[in-house]
């Protein structure tokens, strides 16, 4: 017994002394630790489609063009230095002296190989450029892209498309080798892929041969950690374990931002969070007056308050910052119980009951559904809520087993609203779960890319937006402001309005 407790005692002592020498402040200024909300399924730019995959692809690869985060209507040169549209044909002049991390030079062949592969694979962000018909190498520094129909948005959509190496694609592409891209990366970007420790982190190192300009005191090494638990990301950020964290729960973010040593970076990157989709095909939600009653009854204030005031109520689908947004010219959407009751009376559907399927795992979605339930109850409408896994929830409304579905939405394209409208409001769109259809809208969206005058496009966008608003297909409970707590020792973090939480490591620096 003596020996046993002796061992236990020694072990405890060892542990205690070990704890004592632990120091959370042992930061080396050249390594940046990012707490990401998940582990990538792939780091293949042709397949990446969630934020924690973009964390890697956006930093390791470059795109042909960039855009001004503060004014998305302004495109900036990146791998391409000049571009011009001539009807269906776009011509891009490529930057000189760019090399991939493996040393091979970047040229027009890489662009062609990348886009050909992307469209063939048809996953990830390919939908943004699915109107490309062909890619032609004019000379090593010039590439021509022909679209199926004239589109002014091609360049802005290419600001999301990462350029890969044609040698890699030749070597690792095709049916057999595609797997290589899932866990390897060779780009031209500001950071190079070093290693992926499964379950733990992906390590990147700074590419000092990058064509772009780093700030002073950039980070030489980036560790993209996978920290699935939101509270852990918050605690770790606050405790100095992490330098920045992805998706910190709002209350934690506000609290951390108010402690000394931290400040908040705020910005808008969501179109709606959440949006409530109503089923256009089955009663009672197939009745326009009924939908109108729900829109008018909804308690928007409650939703804004749930975001601790860090939200606005949208006037339509398109946020104010978006180039050509009609938001400022649209009427406010407000709770108006009298109007709601009148609309309900007009629908002739008093005492109606409806079912709402909510994807599980999103407290805000659930909360919005609960507000809808309470608001509807005020006008005598019963809402039943069922929480289901995402695919089940969206299938429920698509197969008419539910009247309503809750979703958050954003738009990856900095200038092009047509992709968003297609997915959400046009026939066959994946998220058009309530099966909204409007021929006029269809026509507007089809025509929009071919219109070269921005003012004319803005007018069309307003019409399109009004069609959706007036149909009462969607209830937009709130458009929250994204709040990111940044340690004072770090600078340069900016919120990309067209991407839900981004990390441009190349803009970050230590103070």
């Amino acid at each position, binding site marked *: 017994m003596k020996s046993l407790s002796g061992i236990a005692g020694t072990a405890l002592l060892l542990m205690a002394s*070990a704890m004592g020498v632990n120091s959370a402040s042992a930061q080396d200024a050249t390594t940046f630790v990012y707490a990401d909300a998940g582990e990538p399924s792939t780091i293949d730019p042709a397949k990446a489609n969630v934020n924690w995959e973009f964390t890697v692809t956006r930093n390791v690869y470059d795109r042909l063009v960039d855009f001004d985060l503060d004014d998305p209507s302004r495109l900036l040169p990146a791998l391409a230095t000049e571009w011009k549209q001539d009807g269906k044909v776009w011509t891009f002049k490529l930057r000189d002296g760019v090399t991939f991390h493996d040393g091979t030079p970047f040229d027009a062949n890489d662009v062609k190989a990348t886009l050909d592969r992307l469209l063939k694979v048809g996953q990830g*962000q390919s939908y943004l450029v699915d109107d490309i018909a062909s890619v032609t190498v004019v000379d090593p520094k010039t590439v021509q892209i022909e679209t199926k129909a004239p589109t002014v948005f091609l360049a802005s959509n290419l600001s999301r498309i990462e350029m890969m190496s044609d040698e890699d694609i030749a070597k690792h592409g095709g049916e057999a080798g595609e*797997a290589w891209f899932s866990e390897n990366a060779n780009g031209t970007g500001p950071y190079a892929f070093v290693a992926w420790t499964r379950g733990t982190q992906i390590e990147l190192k700074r590419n000092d041969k990058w064509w772009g300009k780093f700030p002073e005191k950039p980070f030489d090494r980036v560790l993209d950690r996978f920290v699935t638990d939101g509270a852990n990301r918050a*605690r*770790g950020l606050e405790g100095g374990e992490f330098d920045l964290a992805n998706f910190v729960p709002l209350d934690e973010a506000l609290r951390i931002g108010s402690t000394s040593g931290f400040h908040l970076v705020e910005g808008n990157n969501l179109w709606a969070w959440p949006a409530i989709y109503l089923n256009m095909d089955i009663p009672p939600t197939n009745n326009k007056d009924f939908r109108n009653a729900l829109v008018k009854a909804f308690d928007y204030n409650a939703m804004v308050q749930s975001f601790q005031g860090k939200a606005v109520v949208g006037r339509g689908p398109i946020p104010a910052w978006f180039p050509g947004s009609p938001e400022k010219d649209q009427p406010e959407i407000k709770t108006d119980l009298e109007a709601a009751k009148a609309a309900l009376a007009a629908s002739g559907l008093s005492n109606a009951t409806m079912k709402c399927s909510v994807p599980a795992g999103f407290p805000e979605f659930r909360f919005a559904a609960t507000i809808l339930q309470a608001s509807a109850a005020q006008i005598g409408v019963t809402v039943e809520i069922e929480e289901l896994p995402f*695919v089940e929830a969206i299938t429920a409304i698509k197969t008419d087993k539910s009247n309503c579905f809750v979703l958050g939405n954003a738009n990856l394209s900095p200038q092009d609203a047509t992709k968003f409208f297609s997915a959400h409001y046009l026939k066959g769109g994946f998220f058009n779960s309530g099966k909204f259809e409007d021929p006029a809208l269809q026509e507007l969206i089809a025509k929009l890319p071919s219109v070269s005058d921005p003012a004319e496009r803005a007018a069309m966008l307003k019409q399109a937006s009004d069609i959706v608003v007036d149909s009462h297909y969607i209830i937009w409970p709130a458009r929250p402001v994204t709040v990111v707590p940044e340690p004072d020792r770090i600078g340069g973090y900016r919120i990309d309005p067209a991407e839900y939480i981004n990390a441009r490591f190349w803009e970050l620096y230590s103070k």
Partner: protein
Amino acid sequence: MVNFLLKRFAWGILVLLLVAVITFFLSRVVPADPAAFLAGQNASEATVQKIRAEYGLDRPLTEQFVSYMVGLSKGDLGQSIRTRRSVSTDLAQYLPATLELLLVSFTIYLIASFSLAVTAARHPGGFVDGAIRLLTMVGTGIPVFWLGMALQFMFFYKLHWLPIGARFPIRETAPPVVTGFLIIDSMLAGSPSALLGTLKHLALPALTIVINLLAVGTRLSRAALIQEQSRLYVRTARGKGLGPRVILYKHVLRNALSPILTATTMQFGYMISWVILVEVIFDWPGIGLYAYQSFQVFDYSPVIALAIVSTAGFVLINLLMDILYPIIDPRVQSVGS
């Protein structure tokens, strides 16, 4: 004995098969579509269909089942849709982390529960006994996740003594992977600082498991010891002039070992079920976290594999117990001999 073990082994294989069958069909009951997850939110239906075909998800259920079982019989645990690798590769990667955590926790648990139970049983009803009983009672009432978070809050957030999660200090370079057990790999690399870092990261998740195990384990062991102490052979031992130490360690303990072992097997079972929670709380890159993340995107194969692996763990432990019982207690005949 060999015969008996073979029989037990065959039985174990049967159990594993059953678990594979049940989890296979259970997982397919959920109408979720992992292919949609792979394709991305704006992929066309055609792309999703292509991926379904790639993973065989478009085939009839019976066909999927047959090919899964055929693969399984060859040791093929299938493909993970989320990690895009074979489940076996993933398991090989994540299993050492889990085993390291389990083995360290269980060793600490064994030593601690043993010391505590013995201390309590030496003077039943005494102060130490009372304190231990109170502590174990409190320990039983605390849910694992709550305890884990409380420990994080205390030791990471408030005291800055220990890290919040993961297996190794973030900013340090981990020793080269040889065994996958960081304790061993650190030692192989001859790096005391790596070992220290590893131990620090192990401390909280292990403590979470240990505290939860201790509560029940100490109580059971204490009860077994106290019950054995009232046996007649203890009076005989005293009658010979033996001291309390010899009586406790040579006579009582050996007899109490069987019930303690039974309790320990049960505890091991609990531990396997807690490991998922603990790994999620502490971002511990083991098979628990792996299965949890796979489950979230309806990636079936890793979930079935986890069920099979943990069942295999159970079967092995039980087999080990069957071998151990007759050694501990000569009255227990090994069933087959």
